[in-house]
């Protein structure tokens, strides 16, 4: 079978599962790190309650890696898994641009942003009607995948780099455009939860709509259904 007739390219499937492992470890070790100082600030500096914009709850052991409070060990995991996470994100972007997955399936046209079209898609989702017409993804899917791949995940990398004092001497303008180190730390936290929110919705939609077919499709590749089966080989 030619690769063009698979629903998911090998690069997409490989990235998807490695990325899931990376995000799970980074998120759960990150919650442990968050327990080290449970306040968030805006600007360059902040250390006391009166400067904080948010008091963060303490995350229980069952949500964290390791499953007890250890800033040192949590940082070990975070520092290690940052590498495969960032490198695989670079990999999937190169792959998506090269195999036209991004242009064909994820990028949107101006027509799709028309309110009537957006509203129709929202109503279809509310009815659990996930027929995509000809394309692989409908509008809301394209926008969410685009947001996650284009903004949420890259922002995790960039805000993480901005928090690192060893990065700032050669990448100082990154910290400046993010509004200072404590702002970067706050954004790191906010985008982490944005990724988690996507994860919850993504998993929930897979569960309500043919979970086995989708899971197996993301492992073995799956087949393209509908009228577009005879797409150009890519």
């Amino acid at each position, binding site marked *: 079978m030619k690769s063009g007739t698979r629903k998911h390219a090998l690069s997409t499937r490989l990235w998807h599962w490695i990325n899931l492992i990376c995000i*799970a*470890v980074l998120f*759960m070790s990150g919650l442990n*790190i*968050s327990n*080290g*100082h449970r*306040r968030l*600030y805006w600007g*360059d*500096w*902040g*250390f*006391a309650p009166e400067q904080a914009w948010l008091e963060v709850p303490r995350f229980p052991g*069952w*949500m*964290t*890696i*390791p*499953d007890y409070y*250890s*800033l*040192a*060990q949590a*940082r*070990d*995991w975070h*520092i*290690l898994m940052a*590498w495969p996470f960032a490198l695989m994100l670079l990999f999937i972007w190169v792959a998506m641009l090269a195999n036209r997955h991004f242009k064909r399936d994820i990028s949107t046209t101006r027509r799709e942003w028309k309110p009537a079209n957006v509203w129709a898609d929202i109503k279809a989702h509310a009815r659990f009607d996930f027929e995509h017409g000809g394309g692989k993804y409908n509008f809301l899917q394209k926008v969410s995948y685009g947001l996650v791949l284009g903004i949420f995940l890259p922002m995790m990398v960039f805000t993480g780099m901005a*928090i*690192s*004092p*060893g*990065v*700032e*001497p*050669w*990448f*100082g303008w990154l*910290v400046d455009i993010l509004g200072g*180190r*404590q702002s970067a*730390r706050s954004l790191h936290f906010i985008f982490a939860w944005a990724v988690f929110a996507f994860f919850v919705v993504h998993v929930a939609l897979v569960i309500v709509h043919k979970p086995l077919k989708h899971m197996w499709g993301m492992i073995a590749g799956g087949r393209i259904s509908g009228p577009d089966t005879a797409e150009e080989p890519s």
Partner: protein
Amino acid sequence: MKRRNLLIGMGAAFVAGCQKIGETAPGKALLEAAPNWHKNLHDALGGRTALAPEFQPEDISPDFRGNGSTNPANGDYQAQAAAGFADWRITVGGMVDNPMTLTMANLRALPQRTQITRHDCVEGWSAIGQWTGPQLSTLLDAANVQDGARFIVFRCADNLNGDDYYESVDMLDAYHPQTIIAHQLNGENLPVKNGAPARMRIERQLGYKHAKYVTAIEAVASLDNIGAGKGGYWEDRAGYQWYAGV
């Protein structure tokens, strides 16, 4: 709900699996090696001269939080503090040609560098202060560090939870222009909670590298026989990363 229990069970198994992997030899080796990958990248892109950002006087935070030891009770520290640190000595030794002993007056008589920098604690908070003191490179050049030396170790007066505090950096950070032995914070003598009478500023790394209450500066070839061999108090005690630029 069965499905929820299944999810929580999967999560717990995942965490247990990670912890198991972290205990295997290859897992441990990876976790230990990863900070060095960051260090190599940072050294390649930042190198010897890239400076940590310096701020304006109006950026200075109204207070500068003290962490770790904030008022050492061990040894003669309290008596030294009461005497205004008149008898405080900092030795420069180890693998050097000219070992030295400096008083605080000696330290103040050297060429000074003043820098307004941000201090980032490993816990996550930051404070900004203005630091003044001689560059470490001035002392190392005067002592003439021998060729085989690879690290500079800082010995401290404070004993925290039964162990003497110490820290170490490589030669890149030791000779970095912003690496100073600070004896002033915001134009005043260093407060006790911030490391009086003298502390290190290692501006491109996290707070625990900035040894306080400094009594000795030592050039060494290896960190193996110092403390538990990991290069610092928190590194030995709790497994914190020796390279704290991440």
